[in-house]
């Protein structure tokens, strides 16, 4: 994957970074984050636990089995946020890399045309 660089009339290189794909992805991300933020604030103000349903049902099952359930590894405190961030960052890179290779070619051509026209 290479950066798209166009040259304007003054021949200074310009990197087209804020393209339509980036705008779309940022819009979707911000919309989801706003939803999570508002939902979180609502649940916090109403003293809701906001725990996962997986945990709730696993707890329910433990009542029947009388045995403690446990994930294979239980990450303490912020380590969980760290693990999720690392996993999702690199997963995002892999998806982005392959998406661009498989589904981004047409778009790239269109952007190149826009650059030439500009």
């Amino acid at each position: 994957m290479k950066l798209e660089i166009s040259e304007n009339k003054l021949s200074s290189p310009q990197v087209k970074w804020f393209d339509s794909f980036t705008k779309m992805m940022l819009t979707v991300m911000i919309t989801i984050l706003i939803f999570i933020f508002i939902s979180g604030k609502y649940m916090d103000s109403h003293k809701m636990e906001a725990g996962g349903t997986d945990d709730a049902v696993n707890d329910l099952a433990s009542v029947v089995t009388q045995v403690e359930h446990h994930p294979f590894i239980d990450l303490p405190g912020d380590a969980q946020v760290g693990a999720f961030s690392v996993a999702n960052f690199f997963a995002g890179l892999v998806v982005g890399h392959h998406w661009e290779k498989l589904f981004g070619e047409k778009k790239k051509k269109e952007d190149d045309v826009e650059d030439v026209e500009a």
Partner: protein
Amino acid sequence: MHIEDGILSPQAWASWYAASAVFIVPGIRQIQKRVEENPYYKPFLAMVGVGVFITSCMHLPVPVTGSCSHPCGTPLAAIVVGPFATAVISAIVLFFQAIFLGHGGITTIGANTFSMGIVGGISGYLCWKILRKFNSPLWLAAGLAGFVGDLATYLASAFELALSLHGHVPLVKQWIIFFMGYGPTQLPIAVAEAVFTAAVLQAMVSRRPDLLPGILSGKDRKKEAVKHEIRD
């Protein structure tokens, strides 16, 4: 649907491993065959696998019920790479989620694969196929596949728990009890999964219909080809 270690008995989790293997083994063969036929299939499969990994550990809050849950991503995977390959992807995804993220157990990978990768994938795929057979629009078929696949995953998970733990309680009653633990939160998440499935599939088809054989009917393929020619 991430059942943890210590809940299912050894007989139960071993049986779910065996049941999942029935779908995973042909899935591996199918992947090997399609990799030889299509050079794009491997990166495509990798992308879909990572997509399922992210989607199925992305907890979204549902303020109505005061809890969080996650979509599955397997209905979309089943539509684009096939239901058997989705079973293989899910087993890999659940393994990494268990060993690195504390999401689900190791002994329960078979049970979790069965609910998310097999029941979720196949139910979504069947829903998609049936609706497309009746000329349903792509977004509607994909959206309903996402919705049905998501809920079916949690129904299967609740069934797995109920089957093992119902004791003297009638199986159906215990099944409903476990499903009610998931259901109210999962319903809005299933709607979100429907929107996600429809949007991603529509984006894929509009960019590269050639990469998705079997997704479009002959008539649709011609339409997309014309669109592409106009765009180019």
